[in-house]
């Protein structure tokens, strides 16, 4: 086989492998990804499927038990809310009224948070509200 042809064959093989890998990446991502939802969109949630739930922590809803914590998450602009039971680390800025994101699965009427998946979206982390 002459060298230029050999190089072309190598290139085709390398590109095919790269395409296959990229294809596998794309395919597995779609099946592994958790859809992002707010409470009002969770009414048809399937048990066993993970959702990335975003919303505001309802005031007065936080209860701490021995190992778990429960709270309610409400639509950022709306009344719909769902109860969440969560274990794992709680970020420092976690507060009532703050926006949070937590990965959850439906279990009966409640949503169980994946351990350590709670993230607080803190608008004041870098940018404070207007000074009082």
């Amino acid at each position, binding site marked *: 086989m002459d060298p230029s042809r050999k190089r072309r064959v190598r290139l085709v093989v390398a590109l095919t492998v790269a395409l296959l*890998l*990229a294809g596998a*990446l*794309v395919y*597995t*991502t*779609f099946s*592994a*990804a*958790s*859809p*992002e939802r707010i409470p009002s969109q969770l009414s048809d949630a399937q048990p066993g499927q993970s959702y*990335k739930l*975003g919303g505001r922590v309802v005031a007065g809803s936080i209860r*701490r*038990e*021995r*190992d778990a914590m429960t709270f309610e998450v409400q639509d950022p602009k709306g009344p719909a809310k769902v109860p969440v039971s969560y*274990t*794992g*680390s*709680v*970020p*420092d*800025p976690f*507060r009532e009224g703050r926006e949070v*994101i937590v*990965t959850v699965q439906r279990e009966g009427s409640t949503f169980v948070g994946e351990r*350590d*998946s709670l*993230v*607080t*979206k*803190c*608008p*004041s*982390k*870098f*940018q*404070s*509200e*207007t*000074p*009082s």
Partner: protein
Amino acid sequence: MATFGRACLILGLAVALYGIAASVHGARSGRRDWVVSGRRAVYALAGLATVAFVVLEIAFLRSDFRYEVVATHSSTTTPLFYKVAAPWSSQEGSLLLWVFMLSIWSSLVLFLTRRRLREVAPWATAVLLGFGAFFCALLVFLESPFDELPATPVEGTGLNPLLRHPSMMIHPPMLYSGYTLFAVPFAFAVGALLTRRVDAEWIRSTRRFALGAWLALGVGILLGARWSYSELGWGGYWAWDPVENASLMPWLTGTAFIHSIMIQERRGMLKVWNASLVLATGVLAILGTFLVRSGILDSIHAFGASTLGIPFVSLIAVMIAGSVALVVSRREALRSEHKLDSLLSREAVFLGNNLVLVGLCAVIFWGTFFPLISEAITGDRASVGPPWFNRYTVPLALVLVFLSGLGPLIAWRRASAAGARRNLLGPALVGVAAAVASVALGAGSSPPTVAMMGFGAFVLAGVTQEFWRGAGARRAMSDDGPARAVVSLVRRNRRRYGGYVVHAGMALLFIGIAASSALQDTQDANLRPGQSMRSGDYEVRYVRPTSSITTTSDGRLERVNFGAVLDVRREGKHVTTLEPSRAFFPSTAVDEFGPVGRFFEGEATSEVGLKAGVLRDVWSAMTPDIDALKPMIDEGDKVFTRFAQDGNVTQTARSEALAQILVAITERYRRSPPPTTFRVITSPLVAWIWIGALVIFVGGAIALWPGGDSVRRRARAGYKARVARDLGSAEEREPVSATS
């Protein structure tokens, strides 16, 4: 002063626009005076940006709350150290820091290359000033740091307590240094492509900047990881958060670039690849800056709502379109001067490492932007978490570490099988031994960890062997001792041996990451004093609560601290005492909460209790359930309000009363502590991440240290002179002395 600061920025924008026009005109017409004028515009921009930055710093130091940005990001109670760092906690201040650093680096590179790269430099000047003009325009039209409030508040909101960590002083400036330094090779690559001067000269002139960018970004990322580990009550150092990923992506392509340019310098190969890599790195650096500012992806790092989305997307679109057009239109000039001789060569290993690094970057890019991609394709926003990232990045990282060990042991061009065997045998045996040892020590449950131990040891042994052989060769030529021989070896070839030190640091870092992520034990438990929990081999007992009040240097109340004393035992023997605590900073929403209550409704930060060790860290954090103190806090509010209603009470008396109530609450906390949630993590070898980072820093500094090349040139010249003398050809000396 605010008007003066704003004037500096407007003038900076004008100077930058003028400089672009002057440089382009000078480059097209070949008139040096215009080119020089364009370069001076960069110096002028640097001067103006420095003045503007100093004006902002002074405003922060003087707590001048007429400035909106000072009132919202600092306060009189903010400690001095954090007043200095507070400007870059704001959107406006960090953009100003960006321009300031960009203009300084641009001035430096243009000053150093003022007598070289006559064709390329004017275009590079225009590109650098393009970035400068873009950021100045943002500061002038959209996010002015010098906006004033209609009424001056008495007190500001203060720097967010989460940012009060020594890293705040250095982590953001390091990252911005990295991002802005990458603009330099980007700009020169554009210049080289425009003028078709695509030999290795632009690379040689900007190599140190690429290396500096790589080091600054890498150190910035690691400082962020350390900050997260030691300050946040989470105990991790990497979360695959979009903003973390955004800083990692240009670092990965930058790493590929500083390797593959060696092939272009030596062999004139991979020109298309290098040009594409550096252009991609430039785009990713801007993308990183953009992700932090725009808030298009959910991240704990994101700034608040921002108006910067459209300008940034436009800039990135222009950069991508321009880069693609340049590489495609210059593909003839970028033709390789040589072909790859053999797959058993250092070039081939470098190529492999480049593919892995770019593959890693592609995976991270895909995962980071997946929410936007899936929304565009399926209409449904979905995202991937850390397990997804780990699934792809772990195997790629293993290959990368293996290649970083292989590269230094394989010869350029074509390695002989016998030579490769001779170089590889020792390190390979050490690697296998380390893998076996790690299984014996209990890492067998995680095959990737075992593999990483083996590959890491292989790298370390390979680097040691290179130093050993190099120093041995030096000792054979001179009568230096071993230590002297190593020092002079490194001095003679800083770039090479600095690079090897970096490889060793990387191996240590990856060993730390592999062991700590796979074999750590994280436990959460809610305890009362006297109760215990287990983590790994350790028994941790909650001995007693602690509490205190911290005041600022001028006597104001800064925060209330609730803590715990933990007794850590292993097999019944006392190992250490940990004292994690939680600091409660008062809320700035004064109207919403009572004067006492606001101390417990604001930000709270974890102070980690950590026993670090070379074999294992024991890490602890706590969260007391302060709801149990609520009745007392409410009572305190009532008592204080009644007391303060009396018109005759002085301000001092009020402060004292408030302090007394808070002291009573802290005493109550010690007497009858509420149940407290503890997180205890035992993490093997995690300290090696930070040790590895230090080694990388040292290696990078060795490679970057000025003068390395001239020492080498002098050494070479001296050697040539000696050869010439030995050969008796005296006329050889003339050109030799000219090079030294």
